[in-house]
């Protein structure tokens, strides 16, 4: 045979799997782009034809309504854009508080499952079964009406001295207002926190090298409480307390925690704790029993076994589950609309949407906000996960 006949014919274009996959991906991309383009242009054309105003100009118009609770200054003369900020901050507040309490409660209940005490073990199971199986909306209503029904009216509040009041309008306590010089106390607090972190790192390093332990916890508490306190006394207490007082219908002054916030936090924490307890239980059960046996064989006390051996290893299972739980809690906070807590959904998608009629822009902004918050939580949790995940040799 001649050399020319031995040369293989080059295969057709589609016989190469790489080329095929490129073509399919290109077709899919073209199809999706056409689909989305069609939806978007159809929406815009329809809205114009219906005479519905579009655009984000409404964000600079005056809102005209008041919001029950706001972390930044707000009244009816501010703009709709401001209501977005107010709602967003309220959502972030209830999310942070809910995550904090549900994590603590969830860990306690999850670890209680493994207690040798029969009652604790059973209570853990009962708690999870009850609060996991009842719809969250019902729980929110329950806490709200239970909270409202149990508390007395404003004129007969439960009070501790003249400083703390609890009634159906909310929980009132004195606000600490800083005068000149209070900046030093804040700075002292910040310095104390940083010092505590540095001491913790130093103590760990020392323990790794020499085996000596250092009472980090006590020292940290002492610093964080003591340093600002000393600064406070030296400067002559540059703070005044703004006491809440009953004027006419309601209390004025001081800090108010509205019952809607209390009820929503209670509901979210109790509900989230049930799921987090299960995540903790899954994590702890994932640690091989050999670890516990080995720890017992070197005479570690039970509590130390849990905190030094089991839970750190359990965290690599718990943290990804916590990630979902936190995001679920943040999204569940939109149930605030059922009880009138002014979170982002209630204030923006509820009131502002109804006043302006700009449904698409408002819903899009709200979706983007919740998406951004959840992505942030996810990034933080994944970062923490990276710290505890099993690493394999590459």
């Amino acid at each position, binding site marked *: 045979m001649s050399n020319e006949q031995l040369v293989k014919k080059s295969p057709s274009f589609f016989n190469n799997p790489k080329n095929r996959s490129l073509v399919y991906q290109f077709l899919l991309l073209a199809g999706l782009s056409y689909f*989305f383009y069609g*939806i*978007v242009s159809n*929406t*815009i054309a*329809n*809205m114009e*034809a*219906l*005479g*519905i*105003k*579009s*655009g*984000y*100009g409404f964000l600079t118009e005056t809102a*005209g*309504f*008041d*919001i*029950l609770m706001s972390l930044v200054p707000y*009244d*009816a*003369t501010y703009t709709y854009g401001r209501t977005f900020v107010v709602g967003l901050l309220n959502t972030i507040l209830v999310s942070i508080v809910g995550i904090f309490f549900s994590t603590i409660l969830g860990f306690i209940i999850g670890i209680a499952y493994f207690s040798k005490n029969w009652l604790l073990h059973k209570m853990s199971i009962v708690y999870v079964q009850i609060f996991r199986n009842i719809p969250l909306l019902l729980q929110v209503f329950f806490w709200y*009406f239970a909270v*409202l*029904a149990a508390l007395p*009216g*404003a004129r007969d509040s439960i009070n501790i001295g003249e400083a703390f009041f609890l009634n*159906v*309008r909310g929980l009132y306590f004195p606000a600490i207002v800083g005068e000149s010089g209070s900046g030093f106390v804040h700075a002292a607090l910040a310095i104390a926190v940083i010092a505590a972190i540095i001491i913790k790192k130093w103590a760990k390093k020392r323990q790794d090298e020499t085996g000596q332990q250092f009472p980090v916890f006590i020292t940290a508490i002492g610093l964080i409480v003591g340093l600002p306190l000393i600064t406070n006394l030296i400067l002559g207490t540059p703070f005044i307390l703004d006491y809440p007082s009953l*004027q*006419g*219908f*309601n209390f*004025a002054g001081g800090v108010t925690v509205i*019952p*809607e916030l209390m009820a929503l936090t209670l509901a979210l924490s109790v509900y989230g704790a049930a799921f987090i307890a299960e995540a903790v239980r899954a994590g702890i059960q994932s640690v091989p029993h050999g670890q516990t046996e080995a720890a017992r064989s070197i005479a570690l006390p039970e509590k130390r076994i849990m905190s030094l051996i089991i839970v750190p290893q359990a965290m690599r299972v718990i943290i990804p589950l916590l990630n979902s739980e936190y995001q679920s809690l943040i999204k569940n906070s939109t149930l605030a*609309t*059922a009880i*009138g807590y*002014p979170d982002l959904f*209630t204030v923006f*998608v*509820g*009131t502002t*949407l*109804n*006043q*302006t*009629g700009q*449904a*698409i*822009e408002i*819903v*899009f902004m709200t*979706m983007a906000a919740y998406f951004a918050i959840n992505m942030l939580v996810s990034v933080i949790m994944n970062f923490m996960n990276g710290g505890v995940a099993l690493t394999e040799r590459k």
Partner: protein
Amino acid sequence: MKKLSTIVAGGLALVALGAQAGTLDDVKARGALSCGVSTGLAGFSQKDEKGGWSGLDVDVCRAVAAAVLGDASKVQYKPLTAKERFTALQSGEIDILSRNTTWTHTRDTSLGLNFAGVNYYDGQGFMVSKKLGVNSALELGGAAVCIQAGTTTELNLADYFRTNGMSYKAVTFDSSDQTRSGFESGRCDVLTSDQSQLYALRIGLTDPSAAIVLPEVISKEPLGPVVRQGDDAWFNVVRWSLMAMVEAEFLNVDSASADTAKASGSPEQKRLLGAEGGAGEKLGLSEDWAFNIVKQVGNYSESFERNVGSGSALKIARGLNAQWNKGGILYSSPIR
């Protein structure tokens, strides 16, 4: 930038569109009128013990159904909260929104909707518990006020308190029933809403005599039915159905006397009831459109007295809602 952000916004939403023009044809083809009402407001739109709907707003829908389909019972009622009502109408889910909706400039111009008339002239008021010993709205500084979210009530409240230099705490709820439970539980001192709603809500309290409605009326609230823009034929049908009820009262025709009036009444009565004049054909309806309305639903005063007046638990006086020649401001255009 505006176009780009709108494109981006539109990219994440789907808007279902009902028919632009041609709602009249759609209703005839479907054989029933799709009517948006409230989730339950005594006197205006409420489910009764038999499972049917009754109320002043419900009667508007029944009148339109009687005019278009010849049968006032051919209506599908869709209960809507204050937040959903406009999107339901814009998207075509309902043909007409009859839900004690205030006719304001913003709603009439920027939502792609038209108000077809006013079926109740109302105003915003306050309700407080008698125990507070308050006699005027000007003594309400610092109070907690229960309101329904997303209504003109919220805006008027803010304006009134700001104008009079008073502060307040706004406790918002989704539905008027929730505002009433908030008021009863003591969460707020004051309940504010349209005066007609206040009377309706007061009936639902465990002790209605313990609450009083303060005399101040702080805003104008002309309530009326709403339809989509760009559908003039349908707009005419709804507008003239409402006006037929008012005109029937003006001409002293009611459901009992409709037959005799049609046969042997005055020329105006005959023109209204379709015995002569051809008014129905010009609307695209049959000639007994108004006759069906008056016979099956009644004229405006019958509807008023039955739902919110002397024949109901609310006992609201005609006041502004009487005919123009009887001390009120209801004035219908002549049918000719």
